[in-house]
């Protein structure tokens, strides 16, 4: 699939500044800063326990950081309250690791939900939009199915459709490939790329699946739990071939660390 790559522009969509996060009293990420540009597929990666998902959950406002700012399209997620926070929330959608579809609703009802809550569209229009979004992810034939009646990969695609219901600027994906077979995972990667390139949606993806990272990422940041900081930033192929950091090279080449091999 030959798709045009997004290139960083001067515009910044997400700016994370001097961000420090703690989990259960101990600092897991210490004073990091980075930027995400419109239209790019930005991947947060790192080893297990490096704070990838913690960072994502701070970016979407579920946790409060120890210090720092998270600016989404100019508004600070950390300090925003009331209407400002509600406005920020409409700018992004989130796909959770397990899909987090509402089990008591059909796929169409799941996708319709944000439309019901935040728009005054007529019933017919909401159904049409929900079906369009489901078609975009290849699930239009399953609109009346319950989440429990479809596979894990389909649940993740449906979760992407729901996250896109309000046409957000940004989609946050938490470990989209986790628990999927290689073929389903590759199909999901293609979907992400297609949405990113055709709809110019900015993707922020947490992952540690190397094939997936090579397939979709324009840029990555790499978190290291030992230093609790970003140890590398850039296109994944470049980091694999040119990084001077041993751990980064080991990560990209799937080599065990010296500690593990003794």
């Amino acid at each position, binding site marked *: 699939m030959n798709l045009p790559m997004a290139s960083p522009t001067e515009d910044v969509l997400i700016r994370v500044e001097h961000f420090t996060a703690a989990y259960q009293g101990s600092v897991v990420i210490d004073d990091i800063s980075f930027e995400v540009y419109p239209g790019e597929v930005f991947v947060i990666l790192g080893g297990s326990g490096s704070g990838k998902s913690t960072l994502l*959950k701070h970016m*979407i*406002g*579920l946790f409060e950081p120890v210090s720092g700012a998270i600016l989404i399209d100019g508004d600070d997620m950390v300090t925003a309250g009331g209407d400002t926070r*509600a406005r920020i*929330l*409409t700018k*992004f*959608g*989130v796909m*959770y*690791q*397990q899909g*987090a*579809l*509402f*089990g008591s609703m059909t796929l169409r009802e799941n996708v319709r*939900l*944000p439309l019901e*809550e*935040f728009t005054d569209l007529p019933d017919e229009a909401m159904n049409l939009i929900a079906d369009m979004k489901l078609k975009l992810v290849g699930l239009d034939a399953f609109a009346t199915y319950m989440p429990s009646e479809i596979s894990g990969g389909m649940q993740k695609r449906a979760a992407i459709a729901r996250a896109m219901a309000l046409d957000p600027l940004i989609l946050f994906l938490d470990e989209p490939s986790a628990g999927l077979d290689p073929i389903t995972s590759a199909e999901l990667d293609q979907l992400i790329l297609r949405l990113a390139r055709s709809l110019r949606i900015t993707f922020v993806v947490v992952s540690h699946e190397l094939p997936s990272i090579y397939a979709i990422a324009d840029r990555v940041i790499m978190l290291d739990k030992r230093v609790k900081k970003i140890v590398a930033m850039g296109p994944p192929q470049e980091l694999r071939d040119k990084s001077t950091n041993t751990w980064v090279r080991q990560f990209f080449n799937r080599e065990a660390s010296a*500690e593990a091999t*003794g």
Partner: protein
Amino acid sequence: MLALETEKTASIGFRVSIDSGTSTLFVVGRLDVHTTGGVWQKALRVIEESHPDRFVVDASGVTYCDGAGIALLLKLQDRQRSAGGSFAIVSLREVFHRLLDLYGNIPVTESAQGTPTRLSFVEQVGRVSLEVGHNLRILVAFTGQLTVTLFRAAAHPHHVRWRDMWHVAELAGVNAIPIVALIGFLLGLIMAFQSAIPMRRFGADIFVANLIGLSMLRELGPLMTAILLAGRSGSAFAAELGTMKVREEIDALSTMGLDPVRFLVVPRVLAAVSMTPLLTIFANLFGLIGGAVVMISLGYPLVTYGNQLLSAVHLGDLISGLSKSLAFGLVVAGVGCLRGLQTTTGASAVGESTTSAVVSGIILIAILDGVFAVLFYSLGI
């Protein structure tokens, strides 16, 4: 050199010698997962009792050693170094040395979580008090949030998810009628039977109707219905919301800008508050029927039982009971939902939330019943 002790288990033995500040532990035999447990404490006690400057493990007699044996060696090393002394293992066969090197980088501590320190009574009281205070603070904050959301729902009824509310009302209310009716009937029947026997000796068995009527309508009807609701629906709310929390559905609601309290708690609370008084009426009715069965079997016509009942109970008794049941419904649903939303992660978390919802619900019902008793007494109801 002084031989202090010789220990022997199924296939392991050890001997300790102390010589001018150096304790040597001679280990002989198999140091494996089956034998190590038998000598673990005794080996550690050697360091604690002799406080050597240098502690040496002579492993020349070790014929086999696995991970458990290495764990003991590492533990001894850690204990000796913590005491400020030096430690050495001598004559460990090369094949076992490699095993020691493999695990050797792992720092040895009392346990993965550290040694749980035994707390004094005062510390335990303090800790429990802090926990109770913390829970109370959460309960007050949640009550405030729920109250505000309920007022908003009253001001904007179209924001309430009525479909969910009716669905929950069916599950928690309509489907609970058989069990509520059965318990109410048995309660009335047993109470009437147990009281009729002694009262008959005094020729006062007609007053069983008064006892059943007043106790069911004012106290037992609302109380038993609420306890049943806590066990049946409070736990279900906690389990449902807890599972949603574990599956990140609550997070998904929050990031969609939807308030979980409005979206999930309000329909359940409204359903419980509207269904509890109705269920209480069923419990009362079937309790009175249970009493009637006993009275008829004692030879009283139904009309006599009915007249006695009407002379004993008043509309105020029914209303006071129903007003209590409203509050009980609010508490049961509120606590069930709160415990569900507080669910942490892991397989056991939902179970813990469910248990906590039932226990907290019943405790709060008992407290609230006491408050109502005092309140009604003060008001002369």
